């Protein structure tokens, strides 16, 4: 997938936040967080901003686009 992310590292750096805790904070299911984290699902722009906001980080430090 062209969109990659740093969610796993950011969760670790934020007190080992669990996937369930992140899911709760962004209003999604744990399965969706897992799919995003494993690069199986590219979230919407709003969801991406919500995730970045949950880590208090700018969007581009959480997600990056990988050109083909």
């Amino acid at each position, binding site marked *: 997938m062209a969109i990659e992310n740093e969610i796993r590292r950011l969760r670790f750096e934020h007190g080992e936040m669990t996937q369930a805790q992140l899911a709760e904070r962004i209003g*999604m*299911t744990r*399965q*969706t967080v897992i799919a995003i984290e494993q690069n*199986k699902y590219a979230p919407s722009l709003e969801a991406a901003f919500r995730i970045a906001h949950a880590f208090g980080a700018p969007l581009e430090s959480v997600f990056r686009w990988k050109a083909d």
Partner: protein
Amino acid sequence: MSFREKSAWIALVTYGVVFGGYFLVLFQNWQDSYGRFLSIGLLVGAVIALIVIATVLTIVAALLNPKEANAPADERETLIDLKAERIASYTLSVGVLLMIGALLLGWNPHLVANLLLAALVVSELVKAGAQIAYFRAGA
């Protein structure tokens, strides 16, 4: 497994078992007049069984994870639902078009009505199967 994936499994199993049984009994006893009479009672029974079994299983699944069951679908779940619905609608459309052709060819209307029902059931099975496949794949 998320609540919505469990719901898809419930739909797959319920439709498969109930309507598998319906068509098995119906076509084992298929005779023009007898079959027509039998299918009405069987269909009512199948629909009632479908509603009761699906409701009980969904309640059990919801009790196991009430928080997720009460939450609205998130964007990935909605996307999966739409993708699966699209595949199911193609399936149903093909079934309906084939049965229109069958009617024009003079097939027994009672048989065509049951084959239309089969197309509806198959489209529901396809939808549930596609949902499960998408949930397993990520999206």
